[in-house]
């Protein structure tokens, strides 16, 4: 049986936003994330795909307990970490790490690379200062930099190099789970490939499980084992990566795939705007009888093939 590295159960996040003026303004409730359930199997890379505002980053932050969920549970290696306080959470922090999109803001500009990479060891009090630095320098080598970089500062590096450092910092504690929040979207094409390869290599070496959050379907296709597509805080489709690319079920998934720029000028095509109404109208419908479940008017995830879930309306 496949082991679960990270599991999100029915996770949701709600914001209350005051709108308009007056003494008693309307309070709008914004459902940033609603009822997201995900399983990240051990030693696998799961892609979480969506556009800005789809709630994918919010989900990632909640998974790391960097943002308090409004509802639902987070399980790391089977243990529920949803309600744990700072102290109780600390051992779990070692098992879960994160890499962000903006490598510039992800590294403290006032610290040297050695200090940055050694910081996790320092926070968790692992080893002497010397050992910490040593280990940090080793990790710099491991992510493709030189030991001499240890005394440099972030601003002296290129974006790709900084992202390597961020990865080294994330992995020095040998976590089980890595949440990678758009780690390649700010990078140039040639560097993007380097970072994707580095993640692939380290994942394989360390048996890492990665939750890979991205809006870039091309990258997701090259890197992930399976994909979950998010739209407006919900997951609308989830399947092994090739299944998504080969056989997208949801109209939104299809529109996302359509929007990928052609990689050959010959494949240029006219594109048109897909409205929310079109998405709603295009939501797949499945017969309850065929699925053997009770019918419902509201969309829910339906299993269309063994690993393929899609948000669909179940009709009688």
């Amino acid at each position, binding site marked *: 049986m496949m082991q679960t590295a990270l599991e999100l159960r029915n996770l949701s996040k709600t914001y209350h936003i005051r709108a308009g003026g007056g003494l008693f303004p309307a309070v709008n409730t914004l459902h940033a994330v609603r009822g997201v359930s995900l399983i990240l199997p051990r030693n696998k890379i799961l892609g979480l795909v969506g556009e800005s505002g789809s709630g994918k980053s919010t989900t990632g932050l909640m998974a790391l307990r960097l943002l308090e969920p409004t509802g639902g549970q987070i399980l790391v290696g089977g243990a529920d970490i949803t309600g744990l306080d700072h102290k109780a959470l600390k051992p779990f922090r070692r098992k879960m790490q994160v890499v962000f999109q903006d490598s510039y803001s992800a590294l403290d500009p006032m610290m040297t690379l050695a200090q940055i990479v050694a910081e996790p060891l320092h926070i968790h009090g692992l080893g002497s200062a010397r050992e910490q630095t040593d280990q940090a320098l080793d990790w710099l080598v491991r992510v493709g930099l030189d030991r001499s970089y240890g005394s440099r500062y972030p601003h002296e590096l290129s974006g790709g190099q900084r992202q390597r450092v961020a990865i080294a910092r994330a992995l020095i504690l040998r976590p089980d789970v890595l949440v990678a929040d758009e780690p390649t979207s700010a990078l140039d094409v*040639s560097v993007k490939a380097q970072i994707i390869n580095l993640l692939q290599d380290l994942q394989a070496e360390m048996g890492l499980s990665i939750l890979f959050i991205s809006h870039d*379907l091309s990258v997701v296709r*090259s890197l992930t084992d399976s994909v979950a597509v998010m739209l407006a805080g919900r997951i609308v489709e989830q399947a092994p990566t090739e299944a998504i690319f080969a056989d997208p079920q949801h109209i939104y998934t299809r529109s996302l795939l359509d929007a990928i720029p052609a990689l*050959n*000028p010959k494949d240029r095509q006219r594109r048109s705007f897909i409205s929310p109404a079109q998405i709603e109208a295009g939501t797949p419908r499945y017969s309850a009888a065929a699925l053997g479940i009770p019918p419902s008017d509201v969309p829910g995830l339906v299993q269309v093939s063994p690993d393929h879930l899609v948000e669909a309306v179940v009709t009688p």
Partner: protein
Amino acid sequence: MTLPRPRRVALGAGTSQTPEIPLMRLLDIQNLTVSFSQHGGLVQAVRGMTLHIDQGESLGIIGESGSGKSVTCMAALRLLREPPARITADRMVLADVDVLKARGAELAQLRGKAAAMIFQDPMTAFDPSFTIGHQIVETILAHRSARKAEARSEALGLLARVEIKNPAAVLDSYPHQLSGGMLQRAMIAMALSCRPKILFADEPTTALDVTVQAQILQLIKDVQIEFGMGLVMVTHDLGVIAETVDRVLVMYGGRVMEQAPVQDLFDTPAHPYTVALLASIPGRTGGRRRLTEIPGASPNPANPPTGCPFHPRCPVAVARCSQDTPVLRSTAPGRDVACWRAE
């Protein structure tokens, strides 16, 4: 369209223009160099850039960050602050005007009217204190004598043209009230407002979502054809290039590496850098796999390598590559390559 005021015609006519230039040529840049003084040192962002664009033509400039592609555009409209920037060129003529000699009103007339530009981040490109409508109207009024109401109705039409659903509402909106995609449409509308002959698009979709990006690219392509403009699309994304332009210029380390019609570039890339770039694109085929990567990092503009800027990362480099800078030479009609190894 109203005619430009007589004085400006006279000014424009008085500037140097050589009779050999074909009437169609909108932009002609030869041997452009842009450098910035920084901490006492001089950083060369663009080194001997040559490009031209004709009426109705679309040119893509592709390159990674720091390759000098945006600086080239900014230099063409003299939008860089001088100093610290220093621009030299053997020739830089935009719509029959010598850009390097243009001053004050002449320059202002060049901008927006001869050439318009759209920028990467629509969120910061508008003045937050004024409505979209105001900013479009003022652009129109800056170049044409029209009544405010006329300009306003024209702005309304432009917003409708860029496929904004409720143009009247957007006209009276402040920038912060609109989404990035909407603002980028508004910026295109603003760029079109004076019927420019040439449109510079500097990474116009980088800050946008995938689906929005596709729509904006489509829109740019549509209006380019409709208005018969020349288009310069600056991007780091090969996909965008593939989608939008006819001819491509590949830049690296402040230099042009290769120039080719877009189909030829994708089919038969000539420069090793172009080859490597195309190979490193993720997601071209199905299945998890390692990508072909270009080792190393882009050159540091403050301390560029000698010879070919790509030689430290080039898989086929020879000794000569590190010493002599290859010149851009024609290998086939419409194809130029700057590589010692390319035939």
